[in-house]
Every structure is written in C-alpha cells, then in structure tokens.
C-alpha cells in the first residue's frame, strides 16, 4: 500500500503548480476517511480538498430535527440512527428526550427497527428516515415489508434527500470547484450517469471514489488528470456500475416519489427529496401523526454550517470552531455527526 501511496503522492505533486485547485469531496465518509488517514498532509498546498453536503445528519433541516423531537414527546417510539440523537434542536435533542423518559432507540439497521416494531405490537414505532440513496433502499424495504405483512405500528418519517439536485445547487450560481470526489456508495445504487449534468451543463468533472486511502488518492489523480477535459469517471469500479443497482432503484421508485426538500445551509432545493407514495401513505409518519414542521430558527447563531456544507469555508474558518463549538458541546450539526466536516476536522486535528 505504502508503495501506491508514494507513487500517487509523487504524481499529485506534479500538479503543485501554484495554481489553486479546489476539489470537493461530497461524501461524509470521504471526509472521515481523508481526515482519518491524514491524506490532506499528502497533498501539495495548492490542491485543496473541501467538504460538501454529504453528511445526512448535517443537512437535515433544523425544523425537521425539531419535528422529530416533538414527535418523541408524543409517546411514540422513535427509532433512529446513532448520531441523530445528539443533534441539538431548538430547545432539546432526542437524547435529552430519552433522558426525560421518552422512548428513543438507536438502531443499526432500519430492518432492526421494523423487527422491533413487530416484536412490540403495543408500541407505535416511527423510524426517522434520514440518509441519501445508499440508505433509502433499505428504508424502502421496511415499508414494503410492513405493507406486505400488514404491520400497523410501524411508519417512517421521511426526511431522505437525494444527491444530484443538491450538487447542482452548489454550482448553479457559479463556483470555484474544479472537480468532485463523488460518493462511492450512493453511486453503487444510483450509478454514475446521474452526474453527467455536471460536465454537460457546468463543465465540472468528477470521479466516483472508493474509501480506502489508495482509492481516494487515485481518484484525486484522476480528477487532476482530467481538469482540462472534465469527465465523470468511476475509480471505484469494483463496486459501482454506470447504471447502478437497478433492483434498488426499482424499489426506491416503487415506494417513494420525488419532492422538494429543505437542506440545512442550502435551503429549499426543488426535487432534492423524497416522499412516500400515496399507496403506502399509512406508513408515512407525517400523515399518520399529522406532523407539522415547526417554525424553527433556520440558522443557529454564529454557526456557519451552511457555508461549510456549501464548501465556502473550511470548518476552521468558523469563528466558533474549537472554541464555543466542540464535539463535547456541539453548536451545529456539522460538529455533532461524527461524519460532519467540523467534527472530522476537530477530531483528527486538521
């Protein structure tokens, strides 16, 4: 490995031309891996890897967090992924609700949440559906199965978001991003062709990358190589096909349809979210519990998560970073989620 790393480093160094090159890693797991492996140390100073809106916890809108919290206080069982419980809402968080005695449970898989609902028929279990295309099919599976088995005490609060429109929002008004490190596991589902518009409309290329240090460095080399002639390529060929996983796409399409979605930092983006189709509406927690998103503060005072998510600043440029805002006392969601850019920068000392 060390061998390839060195060879990649040597190649990348050739691009140390003084010309400033900004590459955005869209995916939170890439942000984590880059920080964890210390890959930024390998890049020459003119090549900047900046983080994008690829942490699903981070982009969940404030009023969606608050709606989930107020749902918890209504006596239903909230089933969710780990990080979400720590995100501060307007005046509480799911972990604080749990400490008050509300039933908030962390699951590793949505399938486990459905199993839990089936094993506890007297509880009303609501899964908080966050995540991008990687996660969406597994949530879709639970709805399909609940429908088939006529399970009445399970539903999903659908806060899912999808990648392509958000990427477009980042560049539609011009941007200095010269290439995208594209998400590997999202693309395993969607395929790589969904990114074609980046080249066609905005002349920005990208590489779908794996998550090993070698994958990421190879992908960076590939992006650099194509700077003049932007393309969408797949580095992570062993996992990602151009057409993606058609079975998963079919399932997603059966359960969900496109809708608008509000992204923290990016605002409302047309067609960037999903909602549960009418046929499955009894599994739609929003309808079942008549959830109304509250009028939350859209921004947390001083927190620049929005700019971090848009890649406009690095976490360190936020004045609160490492001072008022630390993983111990996170101000914004980018510091809460362990995949959040601010958390990754803080934890791994970048």
């Amino acid at each position, binding site marked *: 490995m060390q061998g390839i790393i060195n060879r990649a480093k040597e190649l990348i160094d050739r691009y140390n031309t003084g010309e400033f090159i900004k590459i955005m890693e869209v995916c939170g797991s890439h942000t984590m891996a880059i920080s964890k492996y210390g890959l930024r140390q390998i890049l020459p100073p003119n090549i900047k890897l900046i983080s994008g809106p690829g942490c699903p916890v981070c982009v969940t809108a404030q009023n969606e967090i608050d709606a989930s919290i107020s749902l918890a206080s209504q006596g239903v069982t909230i089933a969710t992924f780990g990080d979400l419980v720590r995100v501060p809402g307007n005046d509480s968080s799911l972990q604080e609700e749990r400490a008050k005695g509300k039933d908030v449970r962390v699951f590793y898989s949505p399938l486990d949440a459905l199993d839990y609902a089936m094993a506890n028929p007297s509880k009303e279990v609501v899964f908080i559906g966050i*995540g991008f295309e990687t996660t969406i099919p597994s949530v879709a599976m639970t709805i399909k199965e609940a429908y088939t088995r006529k399970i009445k005490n399970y539903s999903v609060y659908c806060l899912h978001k999808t990648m392509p429109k958000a990427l477009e929002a980042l560049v539609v008004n011009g941007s200095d991003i010269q290439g995208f490190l594209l998400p590997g596991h999202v693309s395993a589902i969607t395929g790589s062709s969904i990114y074609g518009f980046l080249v066609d409309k905005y002349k920005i290329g990208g590489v779908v990358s794996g998550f090993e240090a070698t994958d990421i460095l190879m992908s960076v080399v590939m992006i650099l190589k194509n700077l003049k002639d932007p393309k969408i390529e797949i580095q992570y060929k062993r996992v990602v096909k151009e057409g993606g996983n058609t079975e998963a796409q079919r399932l997603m399409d059966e359960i969900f349809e496109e809708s608008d979605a509000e992204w923290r930092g990016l605002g409302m983006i047309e067609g960037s979210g999903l909602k549960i189709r009418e046929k499955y509406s009894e599994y739609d927690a929003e309808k079942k519990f008549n959830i109304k998103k509250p009028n939350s503060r859209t921004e947390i005072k001083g927190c620049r998560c929005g700019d971090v998510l848009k890649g406009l600043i690095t976490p360190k440029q936020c004045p609160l970073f490492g001072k008022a805002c630390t993983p111990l006392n996170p101000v914004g969601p980018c510091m809460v989620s362990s995949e959040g850019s601010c958390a990754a920068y803080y934890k791994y*000392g970048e």
Partner: protein
Amino acid sequence: MDKVLMSHGGGGSMMQSFISEIFIEKFNNEYLSQMEDAALLPGKTVFTTDSFVVKPIFFSGGDIGRLAICGTVNDISMRGAKPLFLSASFIIEEGFPIDDIKRIVDSMVDAANEAGVQIVTGDTKVVEKHSADGIFINTAGIGILHDEASVSIKNGKPGDAVIISGTIGDHGMAVMGDREGLDFEPPLLSDVSPLNKMVEKLMTLKDAVKILRDPTRGGVAEVLYEIASMSNVGIKIYEDKLPVKESVKSACSMLGIDYLHLANEGKLVCVVDKDYAYKALEIMKDDKYGKDAAIIGEIDDSGLVTIETIYGTNRIVDRPIGELLPRIC
C-alpha cells in the same frame, strides 16, 4: 442540560468534566484530586471502588461477577499495589433469578481465588421490580503498595515508552456484539482478567514503571488523553503497532466505531522509562494475560495525543465524548 445523560457515564470527556465539577470539587481532598484509579492512603494502603452495571449480565467470555472482582483488583494494581481485600455489595431487582445470583457469586469466587484476594465484607439490597435492571454489583478494595513502587498518572516524561499488554477492544466489542447480535468465529471473548500478578512482576522494575492504567470505559484513547493531561505531555502512537484482532477491526468498521474507544477489562497501558521498555514488554509477554503485549508509542512534548497512520501521515487521536453509538451514516 440539567439532566444526566448516558454520555455522562460513557468514560469520555463528558464524564471527566462531569466528575470534576460535581464530585472532585465538592469532596475536595488531596487523595481524590490525585485522579488515580485508586487512592493512596497513609501507611501505603491503597483503596478503590467501582460499581458494575454491565448489560448483558452474562456476556461472551465473562459475567458481571468476574468483572466486579477484576475491575477492582485491576484498579488497585494500577496504583502499583497488591490487592488484598474486597467488599461486595449487591443491588438486586425483585424477581431476579436466584440461580443467576449463584452463578455470578461462583464466578466472583473463581476470580477472587485466581487473583488471590478475599471478599471480607458485603451488603445486599433488594429493590422493587423495574427499580433496577437485574443486578448491580459494587466492589471496593484495599491493597498495599509494592516495594519502591512509584506509579502515578502524573509521572510521564518525554521519551518514556507506552506499552499495551495485549489486544485492544476485546471486552467492549464482545459486549456490544452480544447486544447487537454479532456472531464471531472463533467467538470473540471479553478479556476480563485480573492483572495483579502481571503487575506484581512488573513492579520488580520499581520506579522504572511510571504509569499504569487499565483502559476500561473510554478505552485506550481516553487513557492516553488522561495521561497526556495529568502528566502535561504529549503522546504519539503508531497505528501499525497496535495489537487489534482482525474481527474486532471488522466489527468496528461495520459499526463505525473506533477501537481505541472500546473498553478493555484485562489490559493495562503502561508507561515505562524507555531503557526498561523491552524488559517490561518481556515481563508482560511472559504473563498469561500479556502474550500480545506491544510497545505502541512514546511520550513526547507535543501536548497532543497523535497517531501515525499506516500511510505515514499523522493525526490526532479521536477522544471519546460519551456514549458509544453505532454509526451508519
């Protein structure tokens, strides 16, 4: 937040500040503010306590009874002392099976015999159904300092070697595996073990052994941070030197958890004068519970706890905050 959260007990930085603010400051005395695993009292007596609340009560490779003995035996040992006498206090939920109590007590007896300690005083409380979760056990323990022992979390100096006595994260992942239904082949067993015999041999190196600490809640990462902070030094470790079972690594990558955050119950982190590092390593490797011991790094003056990755890059070691949550995205 005005309520106690799970994270306040998770063994990370949130717990540290909670304990300092609420307990250390108020109880305020020279012994407590040592911030050691055990207090060193006049007359070379060492005294410690821990309550055990592990779930499940019977886990792969051990149970709450063995844990309750080993935890306190080890905390005494980590002060450079020989554990002698333990207390055992039980809080039992109404309805708890008496056979399970017997099984737990048998396992305490075995562990105490292995460690060569005696349980000399005890207490039993029964609380109403739903007022506790099965059984909680407190053990406190008394030991006597080994000759010329001079072990303290404040002793670290740049250049000292950092040694771990074996594979990292076995207990934490075994217990989490039981909870999450992970199935390991060969089975992943908790490392819960008494380390007093190993420490007894290590203490023949006298004051060359500077710090001993068992990386329980909060794992190796938290112990390194505590050492760095209390000794006012930095620590550098090397990813490629860390002994970790492949299966533990795999489970960590699957659950999104850092193995440096996982609890260990039969391991110690030892800071040794670098001239004695290999001697100490040899002593550990000779011990039943130390065959995978490794020198994993050294003390420096950076003030930071850093790790050199297998790629030759350096980064800060992630300090645990609170509750270990499986991460998915």
